[in-house]
């Protein structure tokens, strides 16, 4: 068990190192001198030289790579070319918004996905099953931005619920107004709830069909009790682990949702930085998001190993 966790930890560290390497090479993928690309074709040689120095682009690539990793280990992510602020500050200001939004999305997806998924599995072929299939299909075929725009259209222009939904004015923290993330969160939750329902449905069907449950059922225990005591419990763990594994995808979705709802989180930070060619922020932002995914993946794996003794530890 300990050995398994240590092995997962080492693998996570290797992944983190590789992510750092990919992120480092992103800037060096730029054809030609990155400083020139950042500054524009007709930048003066002096400016290019200054930026070269600032970004250490004048050193050999391996040297730069070593420096970059060294700085990273000490928690230095450089300084934004646009805001002139340490990248780490910008991330600490933006990350809470993204985490809050992701949490709201996860909670909403559980609220929607778990009951529907469980019921769909238990009465498969029935109304709940069809509903779960419908939502799952929607979540697959509609891009996040379309769901967002449909919600904005309905909530603001059709039903005039925007005061309730708090679609605008998302620059403030949800701790002050918890409703501001309702609609953006719901948009992301649709994308998560669909696959979650399908996973739960399959798990419930498997559990309900197992020999064990059949035996219990023969003992004359009520259906409702069977459902709550055995079937749902067994199905929930894989369902929730599944949610954990969807974090990377969720983070990807966050990018476009933050843009649409003008939420000043990591997504907005990175997208703006990409368009501004603010490469230190792009690099730092991607790293921060990827590291979060790595940490959550590691935790999910560990928790999963703790609660499910069937997992093999090698």
């Amino acid at each position, binding site marked *: 068990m300990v050995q398994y966790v240590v092995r997962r930890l080492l693998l996570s560290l290797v992944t983190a190192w590789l992510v750092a390497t990919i992120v480092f090479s992103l800037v060096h993928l730029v054809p030609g001198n990155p400083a020139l690309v950042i500054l524009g074709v007709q930048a003066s040689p002096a400016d290019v030289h200054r930026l070269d120095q600032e970004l250490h682009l004048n050193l050999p690539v391996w040297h730069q790579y070593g420096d970059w990793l060294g700085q990273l280990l000490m928690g230095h992510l450089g300084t934004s070319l646009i805001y002139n602020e340490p990248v780490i500050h910008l991330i600490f200001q933006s990350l809470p918004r993204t985490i809050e939004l992701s949490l709201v999305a996860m909670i909403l997806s559980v609220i929607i996905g778990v009951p529907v998924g469980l019921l769909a599995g238990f009465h498969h072929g029935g109304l709940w099953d069809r509903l779960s299939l419908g939502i799952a299909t929607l979540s697959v*075929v*509609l891009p996040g931005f379309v769901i967002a725009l449909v919600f904005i259209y309905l909530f603001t*222009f059709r039903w005039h619920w925007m005061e309730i939904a708090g679609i605008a004015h998302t620059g403030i923290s949800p701790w002050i107004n918890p409703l501001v993330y309702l609609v953006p969160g719901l948009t992301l939750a649709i994308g998560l709830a669909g696959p979650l329902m399908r996973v739960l449905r399959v798990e419930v069907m498997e559990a309900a069909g197992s020999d064990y449950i059949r035996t219990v059922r023969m003992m004359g225990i009520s259906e409702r009790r069977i459902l709550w005591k055995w079937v749902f419990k067994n199905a929930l763990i894989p369902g929730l682990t599944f949610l954990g594994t969807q974090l990377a995808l969720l983070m990807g979705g966050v990018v476009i949702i933050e843009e649409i709802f003008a939420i000043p989180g990591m997504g907005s930070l990175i997208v703006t930085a990409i368009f501004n060619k603010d490469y230190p922020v792009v690099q730092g932002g991607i790293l921060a998001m990827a590291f979060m995914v790595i940490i959550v993946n590691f935790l999910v794996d560990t928790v999963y190993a703790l609660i499910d003794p069937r997992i093999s530890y090698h």
Partner: protein
Amino acid sequence: MLTVTIPDPRQEVTATPDIRHRMLRRFSRRPINMMGLLLIVGIVCAGLGAHWIAPYPANATHFASALRPPSWHHLFGTDSLGRDVLSRIIYGTNASLLASMGAVGLALGAGTVIGLAAGYWPHSLLDEMLMRLMDAILVIPPLVLALALAFILGSGMVNAIFAISVIFSPQFARVVRSKVLTVRTLPFVEAAQSAGAGSMRILWRHILPSILQPILVLGTLDVGSAIIVEASLAYLGLGLQPPAPSWGFMVSSNVNYLSQAPWLIFGPSLAIALTVWAVTIVGQGLQELSS
């Protein structure tokens, strides 16, 4: 005898006409599969024949009839420059399909090569390096990675295809690797090895054909996701330049008209949803068939 019970997986691909016929029948027995297939054929034809099918040219402006709601003349209404939305959606099919299929094709190729190499020499340094690299790509939020790559490489269809393919490659590599792991221990591969066939030859002639089917199914399903990624990139402003029609861009450039002219948003959205739905249905049909 034991050897008789182990089927040569190649049979799945090099199936006899009879088996192929039966599989096709099984696929076509479900009406929803056929609907999906017909829709795909229809969409592809509409894209290729846009010039003849679209009621108006894609970029013909008619300022006097700007922002008209859907009517018999303009089924999906007109945009702020009086262009026919339906025609632009039909023309936009090509960009969407070309980008998504190109990206998935590239990802399939790259992922397969990586997966074959990793799976054929499991637990080697090469395997570890390749697969950890795939893990690393998978933990980076896909849209962020695609956006960064597309922007750094510069706008244009080819760069967008490359950027999207990077985020789809790891899945193929993983599936191919796991398939190779099971296939390489099968007797017919071992037989080829003992007969002195080279690694390349075994990979190409014996292993690749037997894993083709699952990756083609995965590829079909991925085309759907790739359409969404392409539309999202276009929505964020990385894609074709106007006036060339592209679904994602048609949505993003008309967001201001959401309340006044929602058809400008919902027309192209519907096109995205229908196309992805058709591709997904067919992909799932194929998946059921192969399992």
